[in-house]
């Protein structure tokens, strides 16, 4: 093929990829710019950068409690999901039984189902059962929505794990549980980490369930940001957003160091 034509083609390809990245990242870039502006309304930084909205962020006492609620909720839901989900993935990958495919579909389905539907369904149900504690209700729902991430990623990891290694460890004298802990757990650590990161992010970002199941005392961070957006045009919301974004970036970079992103995208 003509070399000039090939260069042109790879240039066009590069431009297309740059355009796709711009389209996808445009809202994040704009939020970053607004957070650095000194203007009291949402505006681009026209006369120099300023960190005044970040300073204001630390004086804001209405953000601390929702942040703690969201963090505590995400950590507890992810931990419980990790135990339930890993056991489930192990069972699914080690045995064949009638209804196995159906079970996989059911376990993964909360990921496809509308969050508002899960929210409203749980609201009725928990009310009927007499459970009125808002945090407990959120916790029950968040385990449901984080479980598919754990099962899917762990299942994909297990399909690459050679179970003969566990048998070898048992032949060498380890009792069954010790063999699993000493051989399987270190091998599967990357899958556990990426599963936990994605489950954590799914819980931390979820607003749909808290719309129904939350109350005035148990406000999660996404709900608090939505409340802010509807009452004021204060760019401090942009500063909160950028801080959250940095948190996401750090967790993605840690995962990339430990696991590799190629594997995440393929899982």
């Amino acid at each position, binding site marked *: 093929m003509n070399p000039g034509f090939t260069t042109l083609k*790879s240039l066009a*390809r*590069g431009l*297309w*990829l740059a355009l*796709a*990245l711009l*389209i*996808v*990242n*445009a*809202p*994040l870039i*704009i*939020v970053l710019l607004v957070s650095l502006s000194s203007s009291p309304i*949402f505006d681009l930084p026209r006369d120099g950068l300023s960190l005044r909205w970040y300073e204001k962020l630390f004086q804001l006492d209405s953000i601390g409690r929702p942040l703690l609620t969201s963090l505590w909720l995400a950590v507890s839901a992810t931990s419980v999901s990790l135990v339930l*989900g890993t*056991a*489930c993935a*192990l*069972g699914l990958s*080690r045995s064949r*039984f009638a209804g196995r495919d159906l079970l996989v579909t059911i*376990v993964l389905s909360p990921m*496809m*189902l*509308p*969050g*508002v*539907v*899960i929210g*409203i*369904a*749980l609201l*009725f*149900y928990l009310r*009927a059962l007499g459970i009125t504690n808002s945090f407990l209700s959120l916790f*029950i729902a968040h385990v*449901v929505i984080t*479980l598919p991430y754990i*099962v899917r990623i762990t299942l994909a990891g297990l399909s690459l794990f050679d179970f003969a290694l566990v048998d070898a460890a048992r032949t060498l004298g380890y009792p069954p549980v010790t063999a699993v802990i000493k051989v399987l757990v270190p091998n599967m650590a990357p899958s556990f980490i990426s599963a936990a990161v994605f489950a954590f*992010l799914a819980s931390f970002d979820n*607003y*749909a369930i808290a719309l129904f199941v939350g109350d005035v005392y148990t406000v999660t961070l*996404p709900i608090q*940001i939505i409340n802010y*957006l509807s009452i004021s045009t204060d760019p401090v*919301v*942009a500063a909160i*957003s950028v801080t*959250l*974004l940095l948190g*996401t*970036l750090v*967790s*993605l970079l840690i995962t990339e160091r430990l696991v590799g*992103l*190629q594997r*995440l*995208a393929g899982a």
Partner: protein
Amino acid sequence: MTSVAEPVVGRASQPIYEKRAGIRHRIDPWQLLVLPASGYLLLAFAAPLALMFAGSFYAGGGLSFENYDRVLLDSRGLQATANTIRYATWVTLGCVLLGVPTAMAMTRASARTQMIVLIGMLLPMSSSIVVKSFGWMILFRRTGLINEALMSLGLISAPVALLFTEHGLIIATISLKLPLMVLPVFAVLRQIPGQLRDAAITLGAGPVYRFRRVTLPLALPGIAVGIAIVFSQTAASYLIPTLLGGGRYPTLSKSIVESYVASQAALGSAFSVVLLGVVGVVVWLSGRLGKNHQATR
């Protein structure tokens, strides 16, 4: 009845005792590990959905279809259903048209470029939807960046309305959901061996024929996954149409929340069942799209 003498064709790996009637299945201890999660989902996921389904038929102290009448016959309910289907369809179409070429360009790029694009897709995908919708709200304002850029380029003379319009909502949502299409298509495309392309070129296939007969059929399972995820997430989204679509654009998800706020729980349940139906049909169809091509390949 399977007789013992009959050869078990193609099932050689399966233990014979599973095939014979009369002998009880041995319970595999590994199998028991699925029980805690299954039990949890039965109690905290399946039971609530079943209760909601039953509740959607409850009106005026008895069983009736009244709630469904209000969803599918009432003009606002019908509009919400039509809006949801149209909105999610356009977004899905946009994501296929932009996402498939992007995934194809990624597979042909260097390893370093692939890594950069991958991070650039994963970061917005994993960041808060509230943050991203907020970004589009700022971009779309009358004095926002898009209007300013178009006006300074001389493409328009007065600001165009983007916020609280359907086309603005669709554009923004395509940007928000695009990674969900690119990543599964890329995951499938990068497994296609490069020799396949070389072979097609050697046999004289032009770019269009190659795309139609080689790349597209192989990419279809990935595209089908992308369609299912993009459509279901778009149809389900409450926040994006609320922040960017405005109050005069009813959707099913908004109607669910509104019914609940107005203490009309049974009506909200009926809206939920209709939304589940719409999403279910599209997910099922896309599953067939992915499978059919695997079978005829």
